[in-house]
């Protein structure tokens, strides 16, 4: 079993829809949770960073962590065609100092 599981998609939704992207993880010691966005033929870029359980909002994006279920989510409201990209979750423990554990990424397509 992988330490971090992420549905590769593709996930195709109409413009304006609410998008939910998810990752599950197996190690309860994970403390830091990140979402990166990767456009085609580009490197990933950090989108959201959360610590421990709860919600964090940034514009149209909300990151949610449920440590009891070992489940993290990224919600995108009012989705736009420019949101079409691959979304990767990345997780680490408090003492891993540099090692991130990455999900495989979910490809998201927003149809105009």
């Amino acid at each position: 079993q992988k330490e971090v599981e992420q549905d590769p998609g593709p996930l195709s939704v109409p413009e304006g829809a609410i998008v939910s992207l998810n990752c599950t993880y197996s190690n309860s010691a994970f403390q830091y949770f990140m979402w990166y966005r990767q456009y085609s033929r580009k490197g990933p870029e950090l989108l959201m960073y959360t610590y421990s359980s709860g919600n964090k909002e940034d514009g149209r994006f909300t990151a949610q962590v449920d440590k009891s279920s070992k489940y993290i989510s990224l919600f995108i409201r009012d989705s736009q065609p420019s949101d079409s990209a691959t979304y990767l979750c990345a997780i680490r423990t408090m003492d891993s100092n540099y090692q991130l554990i990455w999900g495989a990424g979910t490809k998201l397509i927003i149809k105009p």
Partner: protein
Amino acid sequence: DVKVTQSSRYLVKRTGEKVFLECVQDMDHENMFWYRQDPGLGLRLIYFSYDVKMKEKGDIPEGYSVSREKKERFSLILESASTNQTSMYLCASSLGLAGGEETQYFGPGTRLLVL
């Protein structure tokens, strides 16, 4: 803005060739990383460097070596390229390793094809 550049966007090499991939960052970051990205597998860490001449093995170091002679430059070397090293290679850098400084900034990637 942090800028991480990689020497090539696309490379085609023959089996057995020695391959050099170069990465340069312009923000005086301490830490630099080399990953490979394959469909369905996500990003896998090959090597990490936390200072000039210092390195740590990642999850998949076999068949690779690295060099960091200057703070801004981190090179990945494939000593004898094999077809199973065909992949997308991503370089990243970070200011620190904790306290909000661990955000990794990525280059655009090098797509390597080994024939």
